């Protein structure tokens, strides 16, 4: 009896120690709240605007700002809220209605002054993550809401990340669903009741246009990733996604001109024969890989490659190379270069290249064959002690990136991005 009692007392003691493990110090996943402030300015120009059937100005400017706040709820859980607004002004989208009575010749190379020339996109994206006590697994869930004048989006998703092999291997899997909806804005000349006495051409202008009935667009994606430490100075990862989209995958205001239909003009602006018609289903499979190598205390090599395939006939290759150069403990610069090439979609036709008997057609040069070169430079300031403070937040990093992007079919753009990270004290 005494032996049994002693054994019971011993087991209780062990249980007591096990219970006291829960009060043992556990490093927090996120020590304190962080705020990321991001700003960007984007400008582009070209001559193949999709709004005007593949011929017209692509001049566009966009200013975007986002705030990302990460809040530690407890040692294991983090709530991240990402909210942002993007405001753009576009010469090509102004030509959804080019006949608004503005000054100058009506032409696809001139911007009109209509309401469609500018718009704003707002988004909200909260994410909640939970880490296990061992910090070897992380569960997360997220939601997404976005809205602009002619498009709204609601999304949700979740994911799991597991660390194995003494945290040398990381496996991740996630899924997302987007339930989107168009508020279709068709080219003015295709809307019911359109008549303009300035129209010139052989015969009477009448298009084969019919409005879309289904205005929903749904996207379902599954992503898997595998990261592996390959040595004390090198690690790599592989990502693969499978994305299915269905619904209205065409853009309602992008014009198409047929080669077998008479042409009609107002001034120098050709009236649409139809808008782009694309299949209501699309399968996308991108596969990407990263390889980072710590060359020396001053140089790191970051590389990325992606192969892309979809069932619209497009295959693409992307290659990135970025070389951070540490000038000191606080300052670094990183030159970067990106190469991209894609084949044309089965449904792409240049202006007047499609005929009216086809089921699917587009003159959107974003779906044509082209190469693109992007080159730029980044600057980073880092202060891990956050000596500079604004109110109760210490400045941790400042990132400035400037990039130039040139496409082989004439589109040219640049983007400047400023990012700052603050840590709550």
């Amino acid at each position, binding site marked *: 009896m005494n032996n049994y009692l002693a054994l019971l007392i011993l087991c209780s003691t062990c249980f007591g120690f096990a219970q006291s493990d829960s009060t043992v110090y556990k490093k927090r996943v996120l020590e304190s709240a962080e705020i990321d402030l991001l700003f960007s300015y984007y400008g582009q120009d070209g001559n193949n605007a999709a709004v005007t059937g593949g011929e017209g100005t692509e001049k566009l400017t966009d200013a975007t700002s986002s705030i*990302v706040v990460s809040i530690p709820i407890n040692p294991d859980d983090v709530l991240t809220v990402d909210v942002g607004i993007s405001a753009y002004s576009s010469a090509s989208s102004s030509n959804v209605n080019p006949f608004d009575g503005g000054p100058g010749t009506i032409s696809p190379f001139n911007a009109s002054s209509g309401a469609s020339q500018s718009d704003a996109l707002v988004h909200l994206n909260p994410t909640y993550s939970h880490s296990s006590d061992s910090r070897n697994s992380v569960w997360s869930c997220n939601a997404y809401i976005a809205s602009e004048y002619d498009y709204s*989006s609601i999304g949700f998703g979740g994911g799991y990340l597991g660390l194995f092999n003494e945290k040398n*291997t990381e496996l991740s899997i996630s899924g997302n669903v987007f339930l989107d909806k168009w508020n279709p804005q068709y080219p003015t000349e295709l809307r019911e009741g359109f008549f303009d006495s300035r129209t010139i051409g052989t015969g009477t202008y009448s298009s084969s246009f019919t409005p879309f009935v289904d205005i929903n667009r749904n*996207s379902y994606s599954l992503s898997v990733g595998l990261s592996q430490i390959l040595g004390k100075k090198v690690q790599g990862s592989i*990502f693969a996604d499978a994305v299915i989209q269905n619904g209205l995958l065409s853009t309602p205001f992008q014009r198409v001109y047929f080669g077998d239909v008479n042409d009609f003009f107002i001034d120098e602006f050709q009236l649409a024969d139809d808008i782009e018609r694309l299949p209501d289903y699309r399968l996308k499979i991108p596969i990407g890989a990263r390889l980072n190598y710590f060359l020396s205390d001053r140089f790191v090599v970051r590389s990325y490659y992606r192969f892309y395939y979809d069932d619209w006939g497009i295959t693409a290759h992307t290659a990135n190379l970025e070389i951070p150069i540490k000038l000191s403990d606080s300052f670094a610069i990183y030159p970067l270069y990106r190469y991209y090439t894609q084949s044309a979609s089965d449904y792409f036709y240049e202006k007047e290249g499609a005929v009216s008997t086809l089921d699917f057609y587009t003159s959107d040069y974003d779906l044509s064959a082209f190469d693109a070169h992007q080159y730029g430079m980044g600057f980073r300031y880092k202060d891990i002690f956050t000596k500079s403070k604004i109110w109760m937040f210490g400045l941790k990093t400042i*990132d400035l990136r400037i990039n130039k992007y040139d496409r082989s079919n004439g589109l040219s753009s640049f983007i400047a991005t400023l990012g700052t990270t603050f840590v709550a004290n």
Partner: protein
Amino acid sequence: MKKFLLLLFLALFATSCVVVKEYDKVYLNDEEMQLTAKGSERFETNFQIYREAAAGANGGKTGGGCGCN
């Protein structure tokens, strides 16, 4: 697809070959060595999604949420 599966198998096989201890990860834990896109790259990724057909496999948006390609 076969090549991809082979590559994946080799990567998984490699997991049994290399184990770097936590105290040896000083270089791997460097901020520049992280295997994710930087936060400041997101706007570049966004315009690439709009101007190019390909998207995804970079930790960002893979489709949906915008009236883009």
